[in-house]
Structure formats: structure tokens, C-alpha cells
């Protein structure tokens, strides 16, 4: 039995549709990330699961029973908010135990549960302090503690790391992953940060304008994005998208890049397509490298910008009117202004229909 099942969920305010039909299933122990830009509906979806909002139509089942119309406190969920939402006049201990207090859990039991959670989160020393005396990271732990102590069926996180600075965010990410591995909790996590999504999720739901564009494991989302939107959203620097025409040369499926005479080899399932078809060719920066002299299917591009980030060299170049970004080894000898030959890894290329944006897979047209 799945921990969470959502079917046909819609949510509208008057004439504005926020959620346009959401279906998903979550198994026990999964870490689902709802990923998308502001306004895509991810927080609305989370609030519907929590019961803070009621959907216009559709069903939500937690632990096998429908929770439509059920009060949040009876849904067996716990929530961690972006702003932590700690009760300012209560100390940390009482903040964590508040949900238990409201459910009239006996004092001794409460204290024990709080102590356990504080131990796990390493905030035992802070139990008697007030939120105003804590740092951002500490407050976030307390907020997580408040959710942990309830031992719910599902944890809901609403952009919990957005208010932290970059360094703290990276630390807390590791912390969250550790907790998830330790507790095997079922989690629904909302964020707009694709790095959080990629590192934390067991599955990602990429959302846009009230719909789920793709629901899959992070590797799948990254390697086989379902459409141009997903391809562009995940991965930084973004995937290069080049208009091209499919063709066959000497038995090798190729793509002729628009605006140039360049031709690249394409492999894999994308090979089974009618020649002459217009496509949008997707190539991630790391799938482009400098050509060895004399290598076949090399394309010439005018290097505009070279950025050394430390672990890699990012090269921005102009190719037939299009701009591409390549991710090269940091020791590569490239400078701005020169024209160099690049090679695209055939197995890493992905094809998309230029009109619909949908990925082209074998057998389908």
C-alpha cells in the first residue's frame, strides 16, 4: 500500500486554475521533491496534502484512506515551513513538543520523545532557549524537530532551506539526507532549487503551471528529460538546444545543425527516425569536448568566453548563430577569440520535437 496517493487533483480560485490535474503515488520511505519555479503550484499542492487548503476536485489518500475534508491534525502529517514558524514565546523544548501537548500526550512521554529528537538533531543544549536566541540553522533544526517528534506517516517540507545562506544550505542538505537515510521517512519536499532536488530526491516531480511535466528518478530526469522544459530546468549550465535536421550519412544517423554545414553523429534510440525531420537537439555541456585533430564529426565554433571555475572550464562559443556552453577539463588550452573544433558525444544527445517540446524516443514519432 502506498503511503500517499493523489488522483486527479485540481485547485482553482475563481477562474484561475492553480493545479490542473495532479496524479502521483508515493511509496514508503520515498523522498519526493516537487520542483518548479514560483507560481507553478508546488506549494499549493503541498498545502492540499497538508489540509491547509482544500482541492477543488480529486482525491488524496494517506495510508490508504482518503483525507479530503479531514483536519490537518488528523492526517498523520507534519510540516516544516520556509520561515520555520516557531512559537516565539515558547522555549525550544516546548516548541518541539507543542503538537504532542495539543494531543494531550502525557508529560513524561513527551519529554522522552523530545529528548530523543533533540539528540538526533544535536540540539539538546538549546532546549531551554527561545527562538530569538537561535541562529537560522538552529531554528531550522528545531522546526524539523517539531515535525520529527510527531512520527507522522508523511513529512512535508516547504522550501525549508530557502532562508539560509549558501554555506548553511549545503550543510543542511547533507543533514537532511542523513536524517532521511537514518529514519527511512516518507517525505514530500518543495523547492525551486534543482541542486536540492537532485541531491535529496528519490524521485522528482518537475512542475510547471499546475501540471507535473515529469515524475522520475533524478538520474532519469537529468539524462532523459521528458521535454524541453524539464531539460532546461534541471542542470546548470543549462542543456544546449540546437535546431537540426535528421539525416543519414554513410549509414550513420546524423543531425545537420541549422545554420552551419556541421554534422554530428547521433546514437542510441534516437537513430530510428525518418530522415529530413526537424528536431531540437539537446546536448549537455559535459557532453561536448575538444576534438582530437582529424576526428570525424567535429564542428567548428568561435570561442567567445572562457570561465575557469576551479574544477572545470566553461567555454561559451558561437556555432552557426547559436550559443553553446561546453564543460571542459580545467587544464584545456582554450582562449577567447579563437575558433576551435568540438565533438558531441553521440550517446548523450537527446532529440526533442521543436513544436511540442516533447522528447523523441525510439518508436514514437
Amino acid at each position: 500500500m502506498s503511503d500517499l496517493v493523489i488522483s486527479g487533483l485540481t485547485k482553482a480560485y475563481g477562474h484561475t486554475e492553480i493545479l490542473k490535474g495532479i496524479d502521483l503515488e508515493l511509496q514508503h520511505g520515498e523522498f519526493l521533491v516537487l520542483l518548479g519555479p514560483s507560481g507553478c503550484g508546488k506549494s499549493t499542492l503541498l498545502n492540499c496534502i497538508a489540509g491547509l487548503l482544500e482541492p477543488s476536485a480529486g482525491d488524496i489518500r494517506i495510508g490508504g484512506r482518503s483525507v479530503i475534508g479531514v483536519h490537518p491534525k488528523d492526517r498523520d502529517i507534519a510540516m516544516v515551513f520556509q520561515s520555520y514558524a516557531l512559537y516565539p514565546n515558547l522555549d525550544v523544548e516546548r516548541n518541539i513538543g507543542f503538537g504532542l501537548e495539543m494531543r494531550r500526550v502525557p508529560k513524561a512521554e513527551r519529554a522522552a520523545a523530545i529528548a530523543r529528537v533533540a539528540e538526533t538533531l544535536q540540539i539538546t543544549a538549546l532546549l531551554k532557549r527561545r527562538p530569538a536566541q537561535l541562529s537560522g540553522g538552529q531554528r531550522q533544526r528545531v522546526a524539523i524537530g517539531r515535525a520529527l517528534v510527531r512520527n507522522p506517516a508523511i513529512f512535508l517540507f516547504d522550501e525549508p532551506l530557502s532562508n539560509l545562506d549558501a554555506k548553511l544550505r549545503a550543510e543542511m542538505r547533507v543533514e537532511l539526507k542523513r536524517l532521511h537515510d537514518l529514519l527511512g521517512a516518507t517525505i514530500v519536499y518543495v523547492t525551486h532549487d534543482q541542486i536540492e532536488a537532485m541531491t535529496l530526491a528519490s524521485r522528482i516531480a518537475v512542475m510547471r503551471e499546475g501540471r507535473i511535466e515529469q515524475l522520475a528518478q533524478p538520474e532519469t530526469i537529468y539524462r532523459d528529460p521528458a521535454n524541453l522544459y524539464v531539460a532546461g530546468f534541471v542542470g546548470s549550465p543549462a542543456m544546449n538546444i540546437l535546431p537540426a535536421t535528421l539525416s543519414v550519412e554513410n549509414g550513420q544517423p546524423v543531425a545537420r545543425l541549422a545554420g552551419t554545414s556541421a554534422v554530428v553523429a547521433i546514437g542510441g534510440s534516437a537513430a530510428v527516425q525518418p530522415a529530413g525531420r526537424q528536431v531540437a537537439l539537446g546536448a549537455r555541456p559535459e557532453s561536448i569536448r575538444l576534438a582530437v585533430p582529424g576526428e570525424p564529426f567535429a564542428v567548428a565554433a568561435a570561442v567567445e568566453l572562457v570561465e575557469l571555475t576551479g574544477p572545470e572550464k566553461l567555454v561559451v562559443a558561437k556555432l552557426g548563430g547559436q550559443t553553446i556552453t561546453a564543460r571542459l577539463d580545467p587544464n584545456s588550452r582554450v582562449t577567447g577569440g579563437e575558433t576551435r573544433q568540438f565533438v558531441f558525444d553521440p550517446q548523450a544527445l537527446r532529440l526533442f520535437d521543436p513544436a511540442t517540446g516533447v522528447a523523441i524516443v525510439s518508436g514514437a514519432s
Partner: protein
Amino acid sequence: MEHRPLAQTVLVYVAAIVLAVAILMPFVWLVIMSISSAPDLSSLPLHWLPTTFDFSRYVKLLTIAEHSAGEAFLSSLRNSLEVSGMAVIGALVLGIPAAWAVSRHREVGWSIYIAIGSYMLPAVALAVPLYKGLHALGLLNNVVGLAGVYLTILAPFTAWLLKSGFDGVPREIESAAMIDGARLDQILRRLTLPLAAPAVTTAALFALMVGWDEFFYALLFTSDDRAKTLTVAIADLAGGRITDYGLIATAGVLASLPPVIIGVVLQRALVAGLTQGGVKG
């Protein structure tokens, strides 16, 4: 929870109606009294809605005829306007520089507490010396004399509200202007005051309401038409042996119009100014 149980919704609407009725009814009754005929008001059982409308009191109070109620009323209206107006202007003239100084220079901040401390004094404490003082200066029963006394009531909290307003104007703007070579008075006139204009307006209107409302000093220090304010005039009407309650109600309605209009227009700003000043300590 987004949706509310029906019982709670019903409770909310019932409570809202009760509150609305409680707030409005006395007002509405005041207005009704002012346009009800005298027989309507003195009949038993009381007529809640007038059988005959009588607008004559409005006419009566608003026309100037020798020795009429209208003359007394209009001159008291004039006096109230003059006294409050002068006091507010004086409060602003004194308060703006003082508030600016306290806002920008923490070290003189404690002086404001002297001003605020005067709030603890009941008016009676100063009444006798003020009476004697005004008498000695020949300013008894004089709008200027009364305005001067009102100044001390209005100036302190006006300065308090103005200070909050100036606190909201970033010092960096003034520093930039100073570096550009502007004098202090130029900075105040062209930059700070325009930027703090909403707060200044709120403070001025609030002060006007308080001045308009004052009764005690007006009672003590005025005796006839030359300086008697609206509040004293109405108290006279109410305490006198007048049988036409409608007239009293009419005077009340007319006297209430300016502060009520100010209040409704400024409602949000007024409450914000009060809570802000309070929270900041």
C-alpha cells in the same frame, strides 16, 4: 483551514452584526433625534422613526441672527477652528525641528521623555496657575490664549508622531544632500518633509482632532462668544434648561462632522501611527 465549519461561520456573522449594530446605533439615534420633531421626541412611547421630519434645527444653528442659537453656535465653531488651527500650526512649528533633532541625534533623545512625562499631569493640576497667568496677560477668554495652552497638550505627542515619521526617512538621503552642499533648512524643506509628508499630515490631523475635542481648559478659560469653543457651547446646551433635545442632537452632529470625516479617512494611518509609536517604546 481554508473552509470553516458552518457553525463557526454563523457565529462570525452574528457577532459581526451585533458589533455593527452596537457601533452604529447611538450615532444613528443622534442623527434621528436631530431631524425628529419635538413632539416625536417627547412622546411616550418613543417614536423610533420620526413621523414628521424637522430640519429646522439645522437651519437654526447655521444661520446668523442676533442673539440666536445659531449665532452662538457659529461663533463657537469659528472659535474652535481658530484655536485648534493655531495650536496645530504651533505644534508643527515647534515639533518638526524638535522631532527631527531627536530622530537624528540619539543623545538628545531623553528630552522627549520630559514632554511625554507631562502626560501624567491631570489638567486640574495646572488650572489655577494657568488661570492666573492668562488673567495677568489679559489672555483670558481669548482664542490666542487658549491656543497657547492647547499647544502644550498637542506639541509633545505631535513631536512623538513626527519623530516616528522622520525615523522612516533614511538618514543616507540627508547625508548625500549634505555632501552635495545643501544647508540643513534646505534639506528639511526639500527632502525630509516631503518624504515624511504622510506622517506629518497624520500627526497634524490627529492633533486637530485632539484640539477639537478639548473641553476642560476651554470651560475654565472662556466665558463668551469671543472665545467659547464648540465643546463648551454644546455642554452649555446640554446642561441648560432646553426642552428641544433635537437641537442638542443637531449641535452634536454638526460638531462631530470634522473629526469623524478625518477619522474615517485616516483610519489606517492613525492606528498605524499609534501602534508604531507604542511598540518602539
